[in-house]
């Protein structure tokens, strides 16, 4: 269970990017974080991962996000960055996939077994020994997910997983996300993808929670969405 309790985040001495945010994500829940640019979606994830400081309390399975607990927190959470180039820093997909598990003390044999299992589950066996810089955008995004899944996180955080993907790869990504078990928190402007993958939506505006409820209910609410610089998902917009 992930819990935000009156969380505020401010960079330097500027205005807070998140203001008194409170919500709970139950184990196994798939939550879509939506909101206009600058609403605080990515900052919220970064605060959860301890990449930015915060006021208030964030807990993951009862463990508070503090400097001391970061290794434990980060072991529980897998984060897929928006820019896969920043996620894939090793020469090959295989080397990137073993990076996390070996850092957390798994043996080479256990790690290799995990790598093979994840690649098979995602149908990416042919990418195993490919060089990261030679992957296409879609392949790189899928490989980035594989690197995170190899750590067997309890919850998966994804920042704009379908941005810059072509329609076929976007569909593949949606199917992949749907098939993944466990808790998922996904930020995106792609509301159709959120519709397909999340049962609950949290709408952020100006760093505060503007709405929180079942995905279909919020994503159908044209008035609410438009009041917060969003639009109905394309499937509902009658296009």
């Amino acid at each position, binding site marked *: 269970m992930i819990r935000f309790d009156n969380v505020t985040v401010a960079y330097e001495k500027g205005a807070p990017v998140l203001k008194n945010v409170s919500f709970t994500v139950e184990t196994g829940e798939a939550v879509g974080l939506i909101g206009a640019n600058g609403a605080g979606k990515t900052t919220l994830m*970064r605060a959860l*991962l301890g*990449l930015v400081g915060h006021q208030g309390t964030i807990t993951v399975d009862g463990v508070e996000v503090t400097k001391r607990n970061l*290794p434990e927190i*980060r*072991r529980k*959470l897998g*984060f897929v*960055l928006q*820019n896969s*180039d*920043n*996620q894939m*820093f*090793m*020469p*090959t997909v295989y*080397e990137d996939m*073993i*990076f*996390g598990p*070996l*850092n*957390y*003390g798994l043996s*080479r044999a256990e790690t290799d077994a995990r790598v093979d299992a994840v690649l098979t589950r995602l149908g990416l066996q042919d990418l195993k020994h490919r*060089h990261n*810089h030679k992957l296409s955008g879609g392949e790189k995004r899928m490989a980035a997910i594989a*690197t*995170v899944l190899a*750590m067997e996180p309890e919850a998966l955080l994804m920042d704009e997983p379908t941005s810059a993907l072509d329609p076929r790869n976007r569909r593949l990504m949606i199917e992949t996300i749907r098939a993944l078990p466990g808790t998922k928190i996904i930020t995106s402007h792609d509301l159709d993808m959120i519709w397909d993958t999340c049962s609950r939506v949290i709408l952020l505006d100006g760093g505060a929670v503007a709405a929180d409820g079942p995905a279909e209910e919020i994503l159908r609410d044209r008035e609410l969405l438009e009041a917060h610089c969003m639009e109905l998902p394309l499937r509902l917009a009658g296009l």
Partner: protein
Amino acid sequence: MNEMDRSLFALREMDTLAAGNSPVHRLCPAAKLLTTIAYIAAAVSFGKYQLSGLLVLILYPALVFSLSGIPVGTCFRKLRFVLPLVLAVGLFNPIFDRSPLLTVGAVTVSGGVVSMLTLMVKGVLCLMASFLLAATTPIDALCAALRRFRVPSLLVTLLLLTYRYVGVMKEELSVMTDAYRLRAPGQKGIRYHSWGSFLGQLLLRSADRAEELYGSMQLRGFRGEFPYAESRPWTGRDTAWFLVWTACFALCRMFDVAGLLGSLLAGGMR
């Protein structure tokens, strides 16, 4: 592919070279590191007029090039920006040291010329040895070897991140250069009055990306150690590699091997 993209590709080519599977690649990174250090120590310890003795040291890179299958041309292509600096190091020696040292036919060669050539050869040899180490050993394995020798984690992490961030910086530079060119058709290069903001932007953008990249490493448990690096145990083969080469370097340093070879050849010809 613009110049920047080519340069970026060249940087990544080092990873590809290091991932090879030759007898040299298969050696323990620690053995290669120690041998390279011994080689560089031997090379720099030669006196400024000991050019002939120094030339014998070419045998080490020559053999490693041959065993590893790394093309010599690749080495010089990659070092083309550093080599002029190395070659420039002793450029003023002929001016300051004009004492005649030897005579080749009718030409008298001054000590300055010989010391300049010695410095240049030393520089080239050291660069070649360093290149061969980097081209036959993945950077993470190299870092793991440094940690094995108790080099502080902070320094090793710095080395690793510098290696990674050079790529990040080059990527950003590539994107920015393309964006500049598209809005400055027909213009050669970047105008000097744009350099300030251009470099500032480059620094900020690469710092942002570098921070994200380091964050990504931390999120996957990176704490300055390298358990994920290719680990090859130190075997008898590694001991032999290190000891034989170190002995060779020491022999080259203590005896005039070049002179000895010359005498043998001259004797044979007679």
